[in-house]
C-alpha cells in the first residue's frame, strides 16, 4: 500500500514559511468568524479571499478543484435541506405538502452551502501547507502530549489514504462483478458491505504495521524526547499573529455588538 496520498502539498511560498502555530490559530479564528456569520455577501467574500490566499501560496487549481468536487454534494444537500425545510421570510417560490420554499430560505441555503466550502478551505489551508512533523510540533508546542499530537497528525494525513483505499477496493470488487450502480437504494447499500469489510481489515493491518514501525524506532521509550528542529517564531510570524487576533476581535465585536453580518442579504440588519 502506498502512502503517497497526502493532504500536504509540496511548496515553499509565504504560507508554507508561516509558523504552523500561527496557521493553526488562523484556521481556528477564521472558522469562528465564518460560523458567526450568515450574510451571503460576507461569506462569498470570505470564500473568494481564502481561495485567493491559497492560489497566491502556490496551491494548484487542480488541488482546489478536486477538493471542490468532494464538497459539491455536501453543499447541494445543505442548500436543498435548508431551502426546503427552514422557514425564512421572503417571496414564496413554491409549496408542496409541508414543504415551502421562499427566496429567504433559498438564500440562506446558498449562504450555508458557501460557508461549508469556505470552512473546509480555511482548515485545508493549514493542512495543505503544513507537513506532518510541523503539524505534530505545532500541536505539541500548544500543549498537546507528543503521542496525541503524532496520532492526530497521522490520522489527519491518512484521511485521503482511506479515500484512495476505498476507491482501490471498490474498483477491485467491481472487477469481480460487484454491482454498485444499479438496483434499489437498499441493494446499493448492501453492495457496499464487502467494500467496507475489506477496508476495515485493510485499515487495521495498516494501523498494526504502523504501530510496530513506530515502536521499533523507539516511540514510547522511557526517555525524554528531544526535538531536532524546534519551532521558532520570526518577526513576520508575530506580525501575522497580531493581524489575525485583531481581525478576529474586531469581527466578533462587529457581529455581536453591532449586528454586522446577521442578515442574509443586507450587511447591517
Amino acid at each position, binding site marked *: 500500500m*502506498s*502512502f503517497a496520498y497526502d493532504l*500536504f502539498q509540496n511548496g515553499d511560498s509565504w504560507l508554507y514559511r508561516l509558523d504552523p502555530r500561527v496557521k493553526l490559530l488562523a484556521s481556528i479564528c477564521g472558522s469562528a468568524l465564518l460560523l458567526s456569520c450568515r450574510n451571503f455577501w460576507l461569506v462569498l467574500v470570505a470564500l473568494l479571499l481564502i481561495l485567493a490566499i491559497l492560489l497566491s501560496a502556490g496551491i494548484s487549481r487542480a488541488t482546489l478543484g478536486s477538493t471542490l468536487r468532494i464538497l459539491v454534494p455536501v453543499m447541494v444537500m445543505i442548500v436543498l435541506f435548508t431551502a426546503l425545510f427552514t422557514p425564512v421570510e421572503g417571496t414564496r417560490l413554491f409549496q408542496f405538502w409541508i414543504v415551502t420554499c421562499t427566496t429567504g430560505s433559498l438564500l440562506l441555503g446558498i449562504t450555508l452551502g458557501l460557508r461549508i466550502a469556505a470552512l473546509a478551505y480555511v482548515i485545508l489551508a493549514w493542512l495543505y501547507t503544513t507537513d*506532518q512533523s510541523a503539524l505534530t510540533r505545532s500541536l505539541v508546542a500548544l500543549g498537546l502530549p507528543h503521542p496525541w499530537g503524532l496520532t492526530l497528525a497521522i490520522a489527519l494525513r491518512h484521511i485521503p489514504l482511506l479515500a484512495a483505499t476505498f476507491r482501490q477496493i471498490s474498483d477491485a470488487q467491481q472487477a469481480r462483478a460487484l454491482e454498485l450502480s444499479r438496483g434499489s437504494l437498499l441493494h446499493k447499500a448492501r453492495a457496499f458491505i464487502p467494500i467496507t469489510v475489506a477496508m476495515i481489515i485493510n485499515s487495521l493491518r495498516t494501523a498494526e504495521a504502523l504501530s510496530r514501525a513506530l*515502536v521499533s524506532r523507539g*516511540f514510547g521509550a522511557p*526517555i525524554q524526547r528531544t526535538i531536532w528542529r524546534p519551532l521558532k517564531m520570526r518577526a513576520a510570524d508575530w506580525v501575522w499573529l497580531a493581524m489575525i487576533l485583531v481581525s478576529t476581535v474586531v469581527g466578533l465585536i462587529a457581529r455581536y455588538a453591532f449586528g454586522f453580518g446577521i442578515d442574509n442579504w443586507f450587511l447591517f440588519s
Partner: protein
Amino acid sequence: MAIIQVEHLSFAYTTDLEPVKVLDDINLEIDKGEAFALMGPTGAGKSTLCLALNGIIPHLVNGTMDGRVLVDGIDTRDTYPAALSQTVGIIHQDPDSQLFCPSVEEEVAFGLENAGLARQEITERIDWALRVVRMDAYRKSSPARLSGGQKQRVAIACSLALLPKVLVLDEPTSSLDPAGQAEVYEAVERLRRERQVTLVLVGTDAEHSAAYTAHMAFLIAGKIIALGEPQKLLADKQLVTLAGVYPPQMMELAWELNSRCQTSYNWLHMGQAESDLRARLQDPRSHG
C-alpha cells in the same frame, strides 16, 4: 560470542477459536558481527520469530510465549521494544508501512528524537546513515515518492542511525526488482563489514542471502529443520525443496548437471561455477 540467543522459544497466537502455534521450541545462537539467513516458506513463522527478536512479541502481540530470547544479554521479556530499539533494528517487509514522515531526513530523525539525543548528534547521525545507504542526495525528498529499493534503504537508514547491534531484515526485498534487491543487500553487507552489525536476513529466496551469510537455517511450520553453512544446506536438493526455499540459480544449474552428468558440483555463485568448469575443461576427468 553469541549476541542473539533463542532458547526453547515457542509462541502461539491467541484467537477466538483456539491458540495457533507458530513457533515450536526454537533454539538458535547467532554470533556478533555474523550474517545469518533464516529461510522458509510463507507461513513458516519467520516474521513471528523476527518480532520476538526485538520484543514486539510478547509485549505487543496477543499470544502465549514460552522460552526466552536474549539479545546482547537483554531478556526481551523484561524490556519494552521501544527501549530495545537501540539494540535491535528491524526492517519490515513493506517499506510503505514504516515510513510516515514528510521527508527522508525527518524520517531518520524520528527514532533519534525518541532516543533523546542532542540536536547536533541527531544531525551527524542523519548525515552518516544516509551516506551509508547512499541516500544523502534524497534527504529533502518525500519518502512516498521514492522507488521501492530507495524506500527500503531509507528504512534501513532509520534503523541504522540508532546504531543497533543487530539488524533484522524481514523479507526486505520481496517487493523489489533485481536492481533494488542488489542495492539493499550491498548496503547491509557494507554495514556488517564496516560496523560489525549482526545481520539476520529473512526470506524465501536464497539467491542473494546465500552469498552474504555464514550460516543459514530452514524454518518449516515453526520448527528449525536444518541449520548450517549455506553451501552445505543448499546442496541438498531434497531438503531445499522440502523447505520451500528458492535456491540460487547457480545451485539449480549444479543440481541439473549433477543429475545428468554424474558430477558433484556445489555452486552458490558464478565465480565458483567458473573455476570448476574451467578446471573441467582443462581436465575432463576432474569432478567425476
